[in-house]
């Protein structure tokens, strides 16, 4: 008995030592997110199981159970209640976390909007999944795209390491006095949620230093009664909307400021709102988001070796849309291929194409934008798909006729 206890104490001491230096672990995307949340020390977490993010709660509750994270956990009967609890906790000044996907998000939709309009610095994970029916639990970007105009900030991630780093940055961004908005960190269901890779977990002290507790106002406080979401005149209502939109616009450069500090502290950076990969001298570029960016990078390298001047733009911040930076990087390019893992009903193309078309209206040049929709319902976006996309964009750049939208699965 005694020896068991001693060894447990020793284990704990070794663990603490590792924690002070940071660790390198092989983790799935979900487990990475759970570890990131642990490092950010939320006061209240609440979630409901739904594929493909359930594993996140499995790992997070283990971390709470073994004492690595000290926080309130609430297990309600569904996602609508989850977000309502998180809104209440955040209104009372707590640092909060939740996660969901697809149908869970749609069930959460009503309080999801309240969170943004009430300017609460909530951080949540959406492990992207297709919307039903037909029956699916597989990956696809549809859920997070449907909620793109709810006033939340959206960060999209390519790798497990980026999930961890983005969640830490998301708290800084959300709680910034100039921003005060909820942030969604999204990653592809299955492709990233269950994908294991080595992740650098920074030391707790470093994260504490980077993410200090901040007094924020307003919060619910019995000493200082407040009306939350009171009746307003049309003028006041408009002011709240303008302030909300101003904060969203400010979030673009704010992310880059935070990321600069992040790089100084942790030595990693992702380029801010967008990542420009081999774009400087490129004639054509691919624009993509989420996990398929990795595949695209490999194919860009391969095509570069063949002598084709191709680059890649990864959109990290989808809301607010990085309009200025996208226009800037596409300046002088001859054509762009846009990879979408979702469909935008009503526009007959993917969401990213709609955004790019809107952004490029700021630019005097009109370049061919070729849309490729793939990876729906857990389908692969393969190297071969990327190669075909680049070849098609290359032909469009030379003035050849092109089809605006190509469904990769149906080719």
């Amino acid at each position, binding site marked *: 008995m005694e020896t068991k206890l001693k060894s447990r104490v020793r284990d704990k001491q070794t663990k603490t030592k590792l924690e002070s230096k940071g660790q390198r672990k092989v983790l799935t995307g979900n487990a990475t997110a759970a570890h990131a949340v642990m490092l950010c020390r939320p006061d209240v977490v609440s979630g409901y199981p739904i594929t493909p993010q359930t594993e996140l709660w499995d790992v997070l509750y283990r971390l709470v159970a073994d004492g690595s994270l000290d926080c309130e956990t609430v297990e309600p009967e569904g996602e609508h209640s989850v977000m309502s609890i998180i809104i209440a906790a955040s209104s009372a000044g707590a640092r909060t976390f939740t996660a969901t996907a697809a149908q869970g998000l749609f069930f959460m939709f009503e309080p999801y909007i309240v969170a943004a309009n009430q300017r609460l610095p909530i951080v949540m994970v959406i492990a992207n999944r297709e919307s039903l029916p037909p029956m699916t639990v597989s990956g696809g970007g549809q859920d997070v795209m449907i909620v793109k105009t709810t006033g939340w900030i959206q960060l999209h991630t390519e790798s497990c390491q980026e999930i961890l780093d983005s969640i830490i940055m998301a708290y800084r961004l959300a709680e910034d006095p100039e921003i005060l908005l909820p942030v969604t960190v999204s990653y592809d269901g299955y492709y990233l949620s269950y994908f294991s890779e080595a992740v650098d977990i920074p030391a707790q002290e470093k994260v504490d230093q980077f993410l200090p507790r901040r007094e924020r106002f307003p919060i619910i406080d019995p000493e200082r009664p407040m009306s939350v979401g009171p009746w307003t005149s049309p003028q006041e209502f408009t*002011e709240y909307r303008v*302030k909300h939109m101003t904060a969203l616009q400010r979030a673009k450069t704010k992310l880059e400021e935070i990321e600069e500090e992040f790089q100084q502290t942790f030595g990693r950076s992702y380029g801010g709102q967008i990542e420009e990969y081999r774009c400087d001298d490129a004639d054509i570029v691919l624009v993509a988001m989420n996990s398929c960016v990795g595949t695209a990078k490999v194919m860009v390298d391969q095509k570069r070796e063949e002598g084709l001047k191709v680059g890649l733009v990864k959109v990290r911040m989808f809301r607010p849309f990085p309009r200025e930076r996208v226009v800037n990087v596409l300046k002088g390019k001859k054509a762009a291929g846009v990879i979408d893992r979702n469909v935008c009903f009503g526009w007959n193309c993917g969401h990213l194409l709609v955004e790019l078309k809107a952004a490029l209206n700021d630019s005097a040049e009109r370049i061919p934008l070729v849309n490729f929709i793939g990876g729906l319902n857990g389908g692969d976006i393969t190297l071969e798909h990327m190669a075909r996309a680049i070849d098609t964009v290359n032909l469009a750049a030379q003035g050849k006729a092109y089809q605006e939208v190509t469904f990769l699965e149906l080719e």
Partner: protein
Amino acid sequence: MEFTTDYEGPWASPEKMLILETGNWRYQRPVVKTEKCCHCGTCYLFCSVGCVQDTTTHFTADLDFCKGCGVCARLCPVNAIAMVREV
């Protein structure tokens, strides 16, 4: 652009709500027959905007805030309140 709201989001001190003269919404007003009023306080308890005031001998509604819903007249046990149409 000049903003008049204090906070970034829709948060406000509760005093601010008192500035809203909800009495503007009214199409009928409660008139208390003071000699009939038994000073029981039912109208005071049930008034949805909390505008009923105690004059120590009877109750009366603050017409700046009374919306004219008529709950006081309906609940008054001695029928001391009549709803009179605003003209």
